């Protein structure tokens, strides 16, 4: 079969058309999404009043701290006393600090590895669990454990595994003649360790997201692609990935937010050390406010994080729209 035929088959498969069909084949239902509905003025008013308590609550919960944080970021006070207005001095201090850029760099790597690492592991396992394997349900539950177990417990367990030269994993390395790596004492290894830990904690979330997306893919599209001569790899790249694109982008957005805002994973395992090697922006903000008692600069860091997250999220949201249109 020519590649043109395969491509054509894949395109038809993605559209949900049966082999040889002319458009009258089974389509994935899309009820409600494009339905035109006109609400009466009365209904709109009812909706407004029903929504109002939630809107007010959201403003109180999110708006007040946000505004107060804005006040703190532009003042030189403490948690008790707002202090004097200093304009953008705190932002200037933060942006000219080497510690901020080092933490930003670590946060970037931590996020990239955390998002894509957990996505790749989650995707692999979701595809594996889709096949018929014995005790698949049990595996699914077991694979959820890293996500379900409280982070305090899992960080303690990981500490036991790697912290001292006599811990299990360094001992295995030593017995294999690979030396005794100090996984949390060496700055580079500690950074890698924290990222691996994050992937371990996060992959079940990705696995569930992708599993849910895969479950909605009609298996007949694969049959159609096979009949049109598409290889397994072609089916994966041109059917599976596009079909789960929307879930993928949503999971990337969520995991980006989880990674950038992640405090306990890092703080419980390394405390941001050694020598700031694993200090992320949120850890730096925490230390500034609660250890150095520099409220203004600490909150300024949090503000900068928020802005960055919104920009990244908007970009990824646009990708979702794009994938929806396609």
């Amino acid at each position, binding site marked *: 079969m020519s590649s043109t035929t395969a491509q054509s088959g894949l395109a038809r498969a993605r559209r949900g058309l049966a082999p040889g069909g002319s458009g009258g084949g089974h389509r994935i239902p899309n009820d409600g999404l*494009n339905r*035109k*509905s*006109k609400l009466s003025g009365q209904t709109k008013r009812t909706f407004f009043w029903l929504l109002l308590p939630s809107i007010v609550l*959201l403003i109180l*919960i*999110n708006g007040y*701290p*946000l505004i*107060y*944080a804005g006040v703190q970021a532009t003042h030189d006070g*403490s*948690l*008790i006393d707002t202090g004097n207005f200093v304009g953008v001095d705190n932002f200037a201090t933060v942006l000219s600090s080497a*510690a901020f850029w080092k933490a930003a760099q670590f946060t970037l790597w931590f996020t990239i590895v955390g998002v894509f690492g957990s996505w790749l592991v989650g995707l692999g396992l979701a595809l594996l669990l889709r096949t018929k394997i014995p005790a698949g349900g049990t595996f699914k539950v077991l694979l959820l454990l890293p996500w379900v177990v409280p982070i305090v417990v899992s960080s*303690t367990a990981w*500490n036991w595994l790697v*912290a*001292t*030269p006599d811990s299990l994993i360094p001992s295995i390395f030593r017995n294999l003649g690979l030396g005794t790596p*100090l996984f*949390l*004492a060496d*700055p580079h290894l*500690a950074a890698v360790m924290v990222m691996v830990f994050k992937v371990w904690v996060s992959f079940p979330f990705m696995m569930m997201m992708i599993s849910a997306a895969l479950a909605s893919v009609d298996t007949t599209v694969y049959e159609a692609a096979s009949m049109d001569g598409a290889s397994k790899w072609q089916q994966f790249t041109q059917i599976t990935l596009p079909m789960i694109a929307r879930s993928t982008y949503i999971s990337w*957005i969520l995991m980006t*937010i989880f990674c*950038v*805002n992640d*405090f306990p994973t890092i*703080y*419980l*395992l*390394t*405390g941001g*050390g*050694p*020598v*700031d090697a694993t200090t992320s922006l*949120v850890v730096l*903000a*925490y*230390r*500034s*406010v*609660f*250890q*150095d*008692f*520099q409220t203004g600069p600490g*909150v300024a860091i*949090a*503000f900068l*994080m*928020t802005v960055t*997250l*919104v920009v990244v*999220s*908007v970009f990824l*949201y646009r990708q979702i729209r794009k994938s929806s249109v396609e």
Partner: protein
Amino acid sequence: MNVQSETSRHFSRRGFLGLTAAAAAVPLLAACGGGSASSSGSSGTIKFWDMPWGTPAYNDAAKKLVEGFSGANSKASYQIIQWNNFYQTFSSAIASKTGPAVSTGGGFQAFQFEQQGQIAYADKVIDALKKNGQFDDFLPGVLDPFKSDKGYVAVPWQLDMRPLWYRKSLFDKAGASVPTDWPSLLEAGKKLKSIGAVGFATGSGAGNNIGNHLMIMMMINNGGGVWTKDGQLDVMNDRNVEAVEFLLELVSNGVIDPAAVSYTTDNLDAQWKKDGKAAFGMYVLGLDKRVGDTSGDLLVASPMAGPHGDKATLVFPNNIMMYKNTPSQDASEAFLTYYMGQIKELWRQKLMNGLPVFKSITELPEFAGDPNNVKIVKEYQPIAKTFAAQGTSLNANLAVLDGGQALNQFTQTILTGKTDAKTALAAFQSGLQSVIKK
């Protein structure tokens, strides 16, 4: 695309952005949100907030003592405040006027809140203690650090001492003598290393301050310190440089565990257990009980002498403070005076990990029955210095030194050994300068 779906799309995008912003604001909320503050205690009741200074049995006993108060037409209520985010908890409660009237807390907390005008001075309590005889019962020097120009900022009630401990069996096995000065520490450390033991155990991992305290202890053990006598920064003095050079020598000789930089308190405790590797090091009072080995193999060593003959260790005088926000200042003072008279019971019941501030408590059989305790009172308490060394007066900047990033980064730099003394101290000084209040 129809008009309605276009509207929906815009609406959901705004909704989405709102949700994203809300999620992204989590660190802001975390940074700015207040901790839970109790509003328990009716008007006229003195609210006493206490930390978990020992096992839950400690808090139960302290609660009974507090609830036994009735003076100045008032009563007292008791609330435990967890160490986790305690400063945030106190700050938000004080800011919202729902804080305690009297509390224990962080070692330098009283000075931080004094700086913000929230502390009621304890001079009248001190006068009352003079009248009832307890003033003369204080161990020498424990009260002085709390006296400021305006009055007593707080009243000490226990001392968090940093003595040196050793495991006798490991020294016997290595054929080493217990160090009495720095050269003998290096010599013993090398012998201990040869049997796989650690000659100077410490740790600076997540949440572990022992390494930080060790750095300062070695400086003041050499007659140095972070501050001058009048409280100015003095990180780069020669004694500090000498102390840090010695610490780096210990690191390069493997006397300090190369993995110590990442050790949490759990990791360090494990090293001090019966089959652990720690042979010698600075730790807290009651280490033997902490690691469950009271066989007599874990002992307190005598203080080491520095190269110039100086002897000193580090102490944190934990204290009880009164706040201006109280239903009655007279009642606060009456309560604190009463409570200082009751704390002996906590040592009598063996619930305390700290050293008492009153001589009479050190003489209790329940305390003096432990030879390690006796040695600490006799040999360490008289030479103990605070974080304020070379000065003596405590102040708010010490809180920044104790828990701040500058000291932690300095300690971790030294423990990784990839620096020289002057570079590390210069970075430490610069880090401190950027955060201390002038």
